[in-house]
């Protein structure tokens, strides 16, 4: 296996706490210069994996390589990675500058270099004027940026970020996303970012590993994960989706003909795991659906509009299909165009953009 472009290589990593298994046989290759995100709900093992890479948790089984070097036996202070902690963990009795200088001092860099490098880092996060303050005198967002500067100062090969934005308010969070992404691009350091916020993951990451129950459910870029979820968990966790029970009627090379429980038939892209006759789930994103008064062909599903929910940029329409299940359709909120709002109680047809329906391998 080649290591040149692989920053962190996790091989068959297992973490057990007594009888509880937090991480079940996870293998991941994180490329150099990549913004890599571990995404999942709390308790999925993403933070455990990050802490194993940092060295705070022992690896029960498996190996972790950092640029080809096996590191799982090294203590945290011997690993050339740095961490931005969820609650910042700034040293309260030191000034901001001293906090940022700490790692460089531990690496025994020459005195002049330590100071200039630390000041440069504070400049990068726009906090130069606060260098002599104590952490408690700064706001949450500022403390966050100090934590980032402190972790970047020793020029780590990989930067680990443990839900760094979760304690900030929405506006600040959005601003920090852009800033983090820019800093990652400027420094060229590999970022491994842990979050439970799918929007954060989708907007910042080069690649995302969606995790649940100690396993990686899917690995891919934001577009892959959003548009081609592999299974129910990913489809449900990332964005909103309509899930329908279908029976596969026939499978050809690229297409699968599926029948909804009510009798409607649909053509979907085939996936390896599905054979004719199997009962599976089908996922359709609400924004890939549109409504019409008349049937537009045999793929149109008929139903009755039940409810319209105004959500700013969109209007969500809930439609009850004739044969039972409900679906949500997102219509862009614009005055122009032929899209219109259907009042509750009116009969409507639901149409799918081609390729919108995805079969899930459960």
């Amino acid at each position, binding site marked *: 296996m080649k290591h040149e472009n692989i920053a962190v290589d996790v091989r068959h990593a297992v973490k057990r706490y007594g009888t509880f298994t937090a991480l079940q046989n996870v293998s991941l290759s994180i490329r150099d210069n990549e913004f890599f995100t571990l995404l999942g709900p709390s308790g999925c093992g993403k933070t455990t994996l990050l802490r194993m890479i940092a060295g*705070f948790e022992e690896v029960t089984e498996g190996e972790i390589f950092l640029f080809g070097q096996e590191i799982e036996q090294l*203590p945290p202070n011997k690993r050339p*990675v740095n961490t931005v902690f969820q609650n910042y963990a700034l040293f309260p009795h030191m000034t901001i500058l001293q906090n940022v200088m700490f790692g460089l001092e*531990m690496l025994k860099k020459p005195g002049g270099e330590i100071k200039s490098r630390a000041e440069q880092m504070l400049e990068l996060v726009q906090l130069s004027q606060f260098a002599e303050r104590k952490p408690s005198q700064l706001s949450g967002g500022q403390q966050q940026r100090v934590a980032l500067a402190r972790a970047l100062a020793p020029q780590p090969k990989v930067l680990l970020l443990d839900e760094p934005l979760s304690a900030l308010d929405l506006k600040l969070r959005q601003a920090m996303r852009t800033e983090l992404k820019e800093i990652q691009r400027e420094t060229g350091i590999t970022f491994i970012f842990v979050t439970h916020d799918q929007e954060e993951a989708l907007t910042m990451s080069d690649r995302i590993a969606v995790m649940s129950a100690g396993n990686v459910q899917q690995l891919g870029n934001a577009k892959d994960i959003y548009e081609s979820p592999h299974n129910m968990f990913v489809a449900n966790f990332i964005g909103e989706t309509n899930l329908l029970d279908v029976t596969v009627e026939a499978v050809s090379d690229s297409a699968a003909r599926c029948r909804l429980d009510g009798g409607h038939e649909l053509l979907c892209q085939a996936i390896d795991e599905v054979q004719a006759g199997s009962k599976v789930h089908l996922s359709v994103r609400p924004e890939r659906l549109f409504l019409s008064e008349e049937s537009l062909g045999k793929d149109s599903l008929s139903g009755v509009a039940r409810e319209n929910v105004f959500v700013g940029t969109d209007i969500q329409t809930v439609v009850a299909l004739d044969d039972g299940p409900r679906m949500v359709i997102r219509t862009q909120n614009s005055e122009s165009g032929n899209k219109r709002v259907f009042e509750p109680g009116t009969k409507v047809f639901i149409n799918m953009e081609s390729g919108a329906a995805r079969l899930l391998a459960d």
Partner: protein
Amino acid sequence: MAGGATSNAGAVSSTFASVRGRLLFPAWFTLGIFVLMPILMMLIYSFLTKEFRGGVVWEFSLAAYDQFFLYRGLFGDEPPTIEWTYIGIFWRSIWQAAAATVLSLVIGFPTAYFIATRDPSVRQIWVFLITIPYWVNLLIRTISMKFMLRDNGPVNEFLMTIGVIDSPIGIVNTDVAVQLGLFYSYLPFMVLPIYAAVERYNFSLSEAAADLYATKWVTLRRVLLPAVKPGVIAGCILVFVPSLGSFLAPDLLGGAKNFMIGSLIEEQFGGNAGNWPFGAASAMILLSMVLVLLMVFARQRDKA
């Protein structure tokens, strides 16, 4: 109606003030009877004339302070020079108390750290175990300490069994015995405040230090210790101050030549010396010294 609103607010706050005053009364009362009054009495007694074999004559005199600081010869007729006897006793007391404090810190800090890093469900049990010996009277504990340390006691026998020494080393009646006695008397006062500080400590700070390439030792020195410093200072004060005035451990473990301030003062009231003004003056000098030390400590803490 701005004026009305203001006067109304004034009425509310004055009611509040009077309620507060009444609620604070028990605290002031206790402080007055049990703290201010005795100190005031000591202060007054230290400036009175002694009566033969205890008691005082109500006549102003500086004799007690004179006796403490100045030497006027065996018959009191020589020109005054500095009297080193009592200053020496004070100096040795400070040294003994400081040694006991350092010993308590060296043993107490790891103990407190150990307890604070256990699972929360068993921490209380450890704290409980630490305090159990202190249910026994101090006198009995100090005497037991003497039994432990004497020539044919368990400490000497253990050291001889493992071959560190060939014959018993005389521990009793040495400075070390007094220091051990003081250490044993006041150890929980060191452990408990440090335990409370370490328990509040955010351990992700230690992780952050390790993440930034700090060794365990540097993490302890530069991150953990500064964070728990208030607890350490409190522990040191709580051990040092009572050690300084203690007389049981020096009397029972130190023998006649290891006289400490506590014994000196005790002698003046209960013992043969029976010089109340001199005892009171010694107590006042000790009190002012402790006050000065505490102020130095407090300033240190404010700086941190």
